[in-house]
């Protein structure tokens, strides 16, 4: 497939700009010396280029996408319709308040609905992604302890099963990480937690269900232990799809949370963003929230900075159009639809797990929540077929592989999250594929090492990419 720079030729272009209707001005400043080289293609060629690129992408719209911890549920088209309303897309972020009552309503209503779903008292929609939300939530924790002059709290506790963004975010807020090993059942080891907490504990970061898809029954005790030590409890909302409308982080003892609108709330992933990572908190932390809060004023809604705000984590009001999509989704699902989605997410995961556990070892032999983890360690040992090999074999069947090698506490892990928007038939087909691949692995392990065979490229040489980085196209001079 050609790069866009390898298409067209000098002189070809689109005709987009009008002639200048005012006197032309040249600036008396240093101009760029190096010639600007961008593609030179006609619009026809440009359009075909991207159509061809589109044929080499596999999205949720193309097929089953059971990527654990990512919640690749169906992206409703009505969300796109709402987010493309010109009454939203053409609004300048610095318009006077009385001209943006619709936008402020979107912010306020979405915040209120998300607070209800999560059991929080206040929310900000400014963070642009989950990791950004984690960073924000940790800033709230820091601001809280700082406000009480409790400066000896320098540590954040994180289970070893945590997503990499958790410790990375904590580092960005100057915290030291204390990793606690998980118990043999994949959950928080209560004794190790007790040992780890102390006067230097700023907080604990946790997700529930956890990253192996299990609901930690001791959650109330866990958050209690942290609170007794004077720390705060942070909830990583990446797995909310398992429990939304059924259990609320605010009722599990969490003080601050983040959400991933591009996971739980159906906004599309876009190939890696834009997402949105709202942060919710209990009342006592609300004064530290970043950005501006939509509040009732005499003549409608207005924006106000919280009294002791940590500042801003992004310019303006967050990924507003993403919030519009999530709001549309929440309005459609409503009171009954939200828990129904979670329940079916859990049902679909358990259904798949039950149909695979006779041949694929499950990391934990218990009822799972919205996702489950298979451990291919024995397969690797016995017949040299790894999680990677199974994942690559799936590609030839048009199924996006599950998450590989995460969480780190399971060796040769494959994490499967079907989500609630898949039919029984799709699940049965996927199960059949997984079973076939297992058979193939037993009969002919080499065939899996050769996979994939039918994709646009075969396995890429990642070592070479890192050793001799080529990060841009080089024009012939």
């Amino acid at each position, binding site marked *: 497939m050609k790069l866009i720079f390898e298409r067209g030729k000098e002189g070809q272009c689109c005709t987009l700009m009008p002639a200048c209707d005012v006197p032309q001005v040249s600036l008396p400043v240093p101009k*760029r010396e190096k010639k*600007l080289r961008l593609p030179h293609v006609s619009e026809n060629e440009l*359009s075909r280029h991207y159509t061809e690129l589109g044929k080499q992408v596999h999205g949720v719209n*193309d097929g089953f996408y059971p990527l654990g911890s990512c919640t690749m549920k169906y992206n409703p088209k009505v969300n796109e319709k709402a987010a493309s309303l*010109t009454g939203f897309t053409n609004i*300048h972020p*610095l318009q006077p308040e009385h001209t943006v009552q619709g936008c402020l309503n979107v912010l306020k209503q979405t915040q209120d609905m998300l607070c209800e779903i999560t059991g929080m008292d206040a929310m900000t929609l400014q963070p642009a992604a989950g990791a950004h939300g984690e960073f924000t939530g940790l800033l709230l924790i820091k601001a809280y302890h700082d406000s009480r002059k409790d400066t000896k709290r320098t540590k954040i506790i994180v289970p070893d099963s945590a997503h990499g963004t958790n410790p990375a975010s904590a580092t960005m807020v100057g915290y030291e990480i204390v990793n606690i090993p998980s118990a043999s059942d994949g959950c928080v080891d209560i004794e190790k937690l007790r040992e780890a907490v102390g006067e230097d504990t700023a907080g604990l970061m946790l997700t529930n269900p956890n990253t192996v898809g299990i609901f930690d029954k001791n959650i109330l005790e866990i958050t209690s232990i942290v609170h007794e030590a004077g720390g705060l409890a942070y909830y990583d909302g990446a797995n909310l799809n398992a429990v939304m409308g059924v259990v609320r982080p605010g009722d599990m003892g969490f003080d601050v949370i983040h959400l991933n609108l591009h996971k739980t709330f159906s906004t599309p992933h876009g190939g890696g963003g834009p997402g949105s990572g709202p942060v919710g908190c209990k009342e006592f932390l609300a004064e530290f929230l970043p950005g501006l809060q939509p509040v009732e004023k005499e003549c409608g809604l207005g924006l106000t900075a919280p009294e002791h705000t940590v500042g801003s984590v992004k310019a303006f009001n967050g990924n507003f159009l993403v919030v519009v999509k999530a709001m549309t989704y929440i309005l459609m699902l409503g*009171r009954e639809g939200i*828990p129904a989605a979670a329940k079916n997410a859990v049902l679909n995961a358990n259904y798949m797990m039950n149909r695979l556990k006779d041949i694929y070892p499950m990391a934990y032999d218990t009822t799972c929540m919205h996702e489950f983890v298979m451990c291919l360690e024995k397969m690797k040992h016995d017949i040299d077929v790894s999680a990677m090999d199974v994942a690559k074999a799936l590609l030839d069947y048009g199924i996006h592989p599950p998450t590989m090698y995460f969480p780190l506490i399971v060796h040769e892990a494959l994490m499967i999250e079907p989500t609630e928007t898949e039919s*029984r038939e799709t699940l049965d087909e996927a199960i059949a594929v997984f079973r076939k691949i297992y058979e193939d692995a037993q009969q002919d392990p080499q065939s899996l090492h050769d996979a994939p065979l039918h994709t646009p490229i075969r396995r890429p040489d990642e070592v070479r990419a890192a050793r001799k980085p080529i990060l841009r196209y080089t024009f012939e001079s």
Partner: protein
Amino acid sequence: MGSFLPNSEQEQLQMLKEIGFNSFEELFGHIPQQVLLKSLNLAEGMSELQAIDYMEELAEKNVKFRHIFRGAGAYNHYIPAIVGSVTGKEQFVTAYTPYQAEISQGILQSIFEYQTMICELTGMDASNASVYDGATAAAEAVAMSVERKRNTAYVSGTSNPEVIKVIKTYCYGNGIDLVIVPEKDGLTDKDALKAALSADSACFYVQQPNFYGNIEDCDELGEIAHAAGAKFIMGCNPISLAVLKTPAECGADIAVGEGQPLGMGLAFGGPYLGFMTASDKMVRKLPGRIVGETVDRDGKRAYVLTLQAREQHIRREKASSNICSNQALCALTAGVYLAAMGAQGLTQAAELCISKAHYLQDVLAQAGLKPKYDHPFFHEFVTVSDVDSGVILEALEKNGILGGYPLNEKEILWCATEKNTKAEMDQAAAIVKEVCGK
């Protein structure tokens, strides 16, 4: 109620039974009673028809201005029709991060093309796949420049206040000391900068053009920064880079900026696009995803996410940043925009911005709003008047015009782009003249 559950209630029950449960209550039976919610205090779900109706009503509560003269970090440029047609393709919209390269070549290649184009614009050696916006890009660039004995960041006071706020917040988190270098007559105070920088200075950040629209002397500012051993970071307007001396040519170590002008709508502030580029020496400190070129097993050219050892999923607490999801679809948007505009089109757009803004400044001056500064500017400038900004802007608003951004009661920051016609600007000036004349 809208539902995206394909299985009917009977099917759900059937599936439950097959795996040994009689009800959903049993399936959730292992969850402690105390945390189970009785019901959500939310309205009943709406049908799709009702939901879109509801959102349309909200959208109509906003005032859409046909004539926009406000910038201040978010710019009203023409978005070619092809941009929406490409970025609306469902494969691009609904795909996940391209970790499985074999079925993501479309996305990976489009990011590689984007990285190339951003490098061309800035002149720098390498680009990442994007961060959230220009403000967070600036904050991340500051973090990149810190070394063991250099932990103080210097940021010009002529930067966008939103950007300064975000840098401040990030520095509150990561413990970098922040010093704002004062502004003097609408430009960075060079003498103050010289006096402030020292052996503990990690970097100096300046916006080009700056918040007031003025074009800074980046050659000299870069020299001053380097003389003190500090990294030179520029936050650039991407359209202006078609014409102005590039950050690479000014000696920048890191060049970042807000990519929103490259095909993204105003959208009440987001999603936008943070671009980040660096010199070869600093590439491995860049946060976020980066796409690289390689070959596959058959020797075919292929694209992959690379240099992942910088990132959170590998390095965890030692990662250079926590960023995971970024603004991929917006990077695609910028790539399509730049490909559609081409060098010729982008240069035209930049020249139109310059000419239009200078015309606007002239007609506004004649109408009674004097320019505050006498410096070269790109497409934004500040005016001063005796008449209250609020009064001027209200008069414009009544005529469907979003005037410049009020800096205070007497000063307004105006912006003109290729979208503003002579007739529009004449009309705005006429209204202003009437108000100022009173």
